[in-house]
């Protein structure tokens, strides 16, 4: 029952945030403060991790790709896609769950146990709107920005490590970066980071806002916050990975069909089909491909 209570309380907290601000200027000031705390406060650790991830990806990919048939520029492609799709949004958000999430939880938890939230309530301030809303909106703005910075730094870190270790030259790396680049990957990573940003900030705020006890209890709240976020991130991540796998499978099946047709063209001495009719029955039980050759 506790889980249902928590979910209900969480949803009520989110609902309680939406009210008319008592003083717009004060809310704006708090929002800017949170942007600075979450964005600038986490920039250092995000930068270090991103450069390191990019560098390690380049070195490990080069270590695995031993075939002389694979051009070195492929390393850059792999690093680019890995960093953009997975490392920058997912790993950076897990780090931020610890850095920004625990900061939010401890700030609110400390305010709760020292009765500062009660004092604000007595003044007639909607504490959910004044304390939680700026944190969530600040996270929604700053975390995707941090993810974009992480992407750039990760790719740059890969280039740096590639050149320094003599794996591939900077120009080859740059060439690889531009090969078969899909801008949609960046959008997809940003969608993921928005989800993570909301989860990180709202769950941390929830555990901090409703924390009970002092001292050890408060620390438990912070621990619950970061570990709770991690579980939610994993669930959310699995869902998004599921979507990616489905998309990839679709793309793969399309590629298989294309390669199949290429083979047929090869065996038909360069003749390409004039028309391909690929039909699937309504209940998906029967598939039929008809190729009309010249």
């Amino acid at each position, binding site marked *: 029952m506790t889980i249902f209570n928590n979910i209900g309380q969480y949803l009520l907290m989110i609902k309680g945030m939406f009210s008319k601000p008592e003083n717009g200027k004060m809310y704006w000031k708090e929002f800017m403060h949170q942007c600075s705390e979450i964005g600038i406060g986490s920039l250092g650790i995000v930068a270090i991790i991103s450069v390191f991830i990019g560098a390690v990806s380049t070195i490990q990919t080069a270590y695995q790709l031993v075939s002389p048939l694979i051009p070195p520029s492929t390393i850059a492609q792999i690093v680019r896609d890995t960093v953009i799709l997975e490392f920058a949004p997912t790993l950076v958000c897990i780090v931020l769950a610890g850095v920004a999430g625990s900061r939010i939880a401890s700030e609110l938890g400390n305010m709760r146990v020292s*009765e500062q939230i009660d004092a604000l309530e007595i*003044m007639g301030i909607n504490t959910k709107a004044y304390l939680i809303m700026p944190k969530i909106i600040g996270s929604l703005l700053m975390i995707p920005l941090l993810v974009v910075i992480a992407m750039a730094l990760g790719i740059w870190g890969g280039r740096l490590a590639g050149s320094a270790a003599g794996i591939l030259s900077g120009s080859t790396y740059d060439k690889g970066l531009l090969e078969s680049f899909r801008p949609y990957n960046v959008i997809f990573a940003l969608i993921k980071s928005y989800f993570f940003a909301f989860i990180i900030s709202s769950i941390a705020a929830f555990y901090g806002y409703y924390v009970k006890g002092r001292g050890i209890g408060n620390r438990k709240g912070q621990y619950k916050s970061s570990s709770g976020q991690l579980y939610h991130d994993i669930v959310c991540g699995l869902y998004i990975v599921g979507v990616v796998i489905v998309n990839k499978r679709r793309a793969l099946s399309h590629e298989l069909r294309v390669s199949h047709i290429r083979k047929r063209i090869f065996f038909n001495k360069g003749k390409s089909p004039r028309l391909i009719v690929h039909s699937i029955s309504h209940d998906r039980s029967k598939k039929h491909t008809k190729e009309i050759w010249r």
Partner: protein
Amino acid sequence: MIEVRNIQKKFGDKIVINDVSSVMQAGQCNLIIGSSGSGKTVLMKCMVGLFEPNSGEILYNGQSFTDMNGEQRTVIRKEIGMLFQGSALFDSQTVEQNIMFPLDMFTQDTYKEKIKRVTEVLARVNLVDANKKYPAELSGGMKKRVALARAVCIESQVSFLRRAQLGS
């Protein structure tokens, strides 16, 4: 006038206050006295809406506070000042910013007017030179006086003072 009618509050199975009634007239100073754990703070928190009573009613000038929605309660709360046992000062703000906070939030006064008001209330609690200090730099009694200055700076109609003499 604040009227408390047959208030009962329990946490789990433990009844902390049971069937408490009282009338607090305007212009009077009322005291709630009891041994440790007798429910003084719980009663006070019920009166300001921080706890919801299990039964009974609280009336502010004849209006039922317990039946009010959030917005209606906010209107009443703007007329309440409360001094907490632990002072509840904002750690990251100076004494001046702490006292100025309700003025910033609810008034359209200029900075000069707000500073004038802050200086006035600090003089009333005998803390003239503590404007730029942080709560961590103050003693327990000084914190209490700053919290008192914050509670009275907005000229509230009702002041709830919890252990106001503690640390002074």
